[in-house]
């Protein structure tokens, strides 16, 4: 057997202490991804530190915004009346992910930590630089229909799979992190990273750090939509997805947030497009110009060239849907 130790902790400090003493340890919360990875032999932590008893389940809203404890369940956030009312984009994105059963188990912190769904990453007999650095990227010249069109490297073309993360990137969220050195805040758009030469690193979390909460600032976006295009109606990862949040006053877009999923190793925030949208009249939007601009940096592979056209269509549709 590949044995591992298991322990439970009930305070953040105790959890951090265990991690400090056991560099090969992993935190486990909902386990909806980690347990699969362990079964497949992709992850082999020496110790699991169960953090489900930590007091990090709160969902609170104040004048500054929404604070979600790292251990709040995806379904609890999506069903919270205040969140539904004030952060509809976030709710739509959470509900677009996985299945009801998984959302009932998965936590918010775990959601943003989930590993890529690249099939080469999951099959330990195939090459994958993310799983086994230096072994090569099987997807690069293999089957890559689901893979990245932005920000990939020749080491890795995997995509970040979380829908919720796309909405959080659009909504300028912040990840609150604790370690023995204290607390720090990571802007959500800096949380995940591009693969570059170290694709084994999904994000900028440092060793010994624990996500404690995610903060979403208060906003005045009155037009929101999360559009996910997938191969079946539920329980499928995005071919492409688009998060749109707009503040529309009269006919004018006063501010805009736009991010894409299923296209990069991180949620793909489209700041230049946001600037193009800002100040535009809603009846006078030039989607062709906007989406051409977005896609000019795209690089496709053998099986995913469709993502350019589908991505353009999805952006236009998401904005239209938000404006309805």
């Amino acid at each position, binding site marked *: *057997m590949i044995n591992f130790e298991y322990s439970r902790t009930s305070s953040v400090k105790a959890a951090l202490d265990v991690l400090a003493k056991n560099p090969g340890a992993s935190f486990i919360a909902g386990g909806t991804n980690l347990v699969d990875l362990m079964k497949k032999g992709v992850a082999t932590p020496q110790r699991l530190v169960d953090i489900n008893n930590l007091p990090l389940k709160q969902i609170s809203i104040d004048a500054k915004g929404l604070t979600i404890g790292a251990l709040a369940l995806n379904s609890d956030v999506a069903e919270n009346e205040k969140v539904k009312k004030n952060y509809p984009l976030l709710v739509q994105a959470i509900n677009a992910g996985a299945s009801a059963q998984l959302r009932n188990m998965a936590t918010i912190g775990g959601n943003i930590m989930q590993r890529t769904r690249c*099939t080469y990453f999951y099959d330990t007999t*195939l090459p994958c630089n993310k799983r086994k650095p230096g072994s090569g990227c099987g997807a690069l010249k293999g089957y890559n229909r689901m893979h990245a069109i932005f920000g990939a490297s020749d080491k890795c073309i995997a995509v970040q799979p979380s829908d919720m993360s796309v909405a959080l990137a659009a909504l300028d969220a912040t990840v609150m992190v604790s370690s023995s050195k204290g607390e720090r805040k990571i802007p959500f758009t800096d949380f995940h990273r591009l693969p570059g030469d170290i694709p084994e690193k999904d994000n900028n979390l440092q060793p010994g750090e624990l996500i404690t909460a995610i903060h979403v600032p208060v906003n005045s976006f009155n037009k929101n939509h999360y559009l996910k295009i997938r191969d*079946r*109606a*539920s329980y499928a990862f995005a071919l492409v997805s688009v998060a749109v949040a707009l503040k529309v006053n009269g006919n004018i877009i006063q501010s805009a947030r736009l991010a894409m999923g299923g296209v990069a190793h991180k949620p793909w925030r489209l700041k230049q497009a946001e600037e193009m949208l800002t100040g535009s009249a809603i009846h006078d939007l030039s989607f062709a110009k906007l989406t051409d601009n977005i896609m000019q940096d795209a690089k496709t592979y053998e099986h995913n060239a469709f*993502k350019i056209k*589908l991505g353009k269509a999805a952006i236009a*549709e998401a904005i239209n849907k938000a404006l309805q």
Partner: protein
Amino acid sequence: MDKNYFFEDTITADEKRVDGVAKVTGAATFSAEHTIPGLTYAVFVCSTIARGTIKNMVLAKAKNAPGVIDIIYYLNCPVVPGYTSEIKEKNQRERVLNGLNVFADNIVYSNGQPIALVIADTWERAVYAASLVKVEYIEEKPETDFDNLMQKAEAPGWGGTYKRGDEDAYKKAEVMIENEYSIPAETHNPIEPHATVAVWEKNDKLVVYDKTQGPKSTQGDLALLFGLKRENIQVITEFVGGAFGCALRTWPHTPAACIAAKKIGRPVKLVLTREQMFTMVGYRPISWQKIGIGASRDGKLTGITHHAISNTSRYEQFSESIVDPSQNLHDCPNVNTSYKTLALDINTPIWMRGPGPATGCFALESALDELAYKLNMDPIELRLKNYAEVHPQNKLPWTSKHLKECYELGREKIGWHNRPSVPGTLKENGMLTGYGMGVGVFWAGRSSATARGTLYADGMFVLQSAISDMGPGTTTAMVSIAAEQMGLPPDKIRFELGNTDFPTGPTQGGSGSTTAVGTAVTLICEAMQVSLKEMAIESVPGFKNYKPEELDYKNGKVSAKTNSSTSISYTDIIKQSGKPELQVSKSTESFAQRDKYAMNSFSAHFVKLHVHPVTGVITLKKIVAVADCGRVISETTARSQMVGGAVGGIGMAMHEETLMDHHSGRYINANLADYHVPVNADIPAIDVLFVNKPDNIISPTGAKGIGEIALVGVAPAVANAVYNATGKRITRLPITPDKLI
């Protein structure tokens, strides 16, 4: 919600699936669930290359792992008598037997091939030890890319080409179309994985709990493999959790478990993982087809040319009847077809629901739809214009054919009059809206079967036959037939199956169980009637002076026709006869009048769907499935078959695709997250309609068969509706959003 259409129309309120409660409460025992004292657990080590030879296996670490009892591989595998050439030769004449002789040599034919078996005292320990086996290969470059290797396809041993009338007549037609179609490999993925529990009760007595669609067939295979008499092998398959064809033959894991149990002298359980369900138990083969159809301007077909290629493995020939529907589904004087197979370094395919016609009808029914637009003709009118009143090839009359009624019922129910004649012109709520239809066909007939019926003095009537019920509800249908024939309530009847000690029944496949076993059951019930009347006359006072024809037989009683007060229950007859029970066995031969009749079941499927004009996302709105399956024996289970087939057809049309990495020859979506089958949210309201007219020629049950026609024709109906909505003709399945933008 319009989901309540699901069970619209009549449904017999008191008709229940007889095994329903056992299945939903967990009381049903599936093959892997049999616990035997001293049971051990076996786990396969599988190849990680697709082509080559095994140079060396390093077993030391695995052998020393806790709980490991033995590891079997090609160098230490005991002699399997059936692997020798003499018996192998004999086998091939009788049936297709284990194409892969597991552990016989060091050749690797496909990725995921079983190459060693680790047996341990627990499953977990076996899994771990299997992970410690290191294999060194001499690797060769695999050939797995069907699209790029098609030119290497060869005609199979039989049925390569067919011609009637002129060759390629379509090319000279007034109106003609030509197109190519591709369908990827589809993996059956029943919910229950294959499992074998092997127990050697004596050196020459084997009991096997095995997931199989044919217990007798598995028994025969094992008898040949292990050089035993059939009667020394008992195969038990009480329940099967779906199969769709992947349990139609004995795959290598079954002999592997038997080999292991014999070698270690203890019972062995071997359950395949979901990943191994992709690499060891077949799939619908990858296929390419090209069809050309020609017609006169008024829509009379003048020529059909249909070429097809599907893949097989490097180690055995697998073929199926893909082009047959083009030969005989619609009337056409000039037809030529060809069929070839392409050997790849992949495991062997196997029949999957609607095998052959499901593939062929996707091409044929799509092509007819394309032709209808070119003729500016309604697709149903085109089919009616070319309706085959007799079999187009041999001109024989059909045993029964009610396809016209299927068209009429379906046309009405789907609202065909709303279908736009110009594609892409109908919108509902901003969504492109389309209607499409496709025809399904499958061989109907009757194989041989034997059953035994025993009427006990306590009133229970027990029927037995060594068949299995993979899910269609054979048990329920047999109880339904017997209840009607005997005039007994269903709860007084039990149908027992899944045990080779019972009388021989057919393998469940090709929609043939109800006609074959149902006929045997009918004969038993008729014989029971004769015997009970005779017994009443012989043993019951008051009946002595009656002749059998003066007696009535209903509601569990024998009564005098002229005097209803002279009446006695079956059970009292048996009691008064002094016998403990009345037992009758009956056999039915396979249907013999093939020179007099043509036999098919038919279906017509109708689809209404929406396509998002910008993103290409398809939303199915409604499916109407109409069956000409002869008389409906059990409405509950027949309806379930049609609904299940429609869902399988949705999967074929829109979701299913077994993907391969051609560098490694390895499946890369061998799990149920990445291999998509429809989820509830994909499935619309499904209306099921039956013509329900008996076919009294094929069998006295009046039934023809339904399981295959439930799926055949669904995929082209979806593709045709997509064309009607968008003007885009998708010929490469599955139809995913990226193909519609």
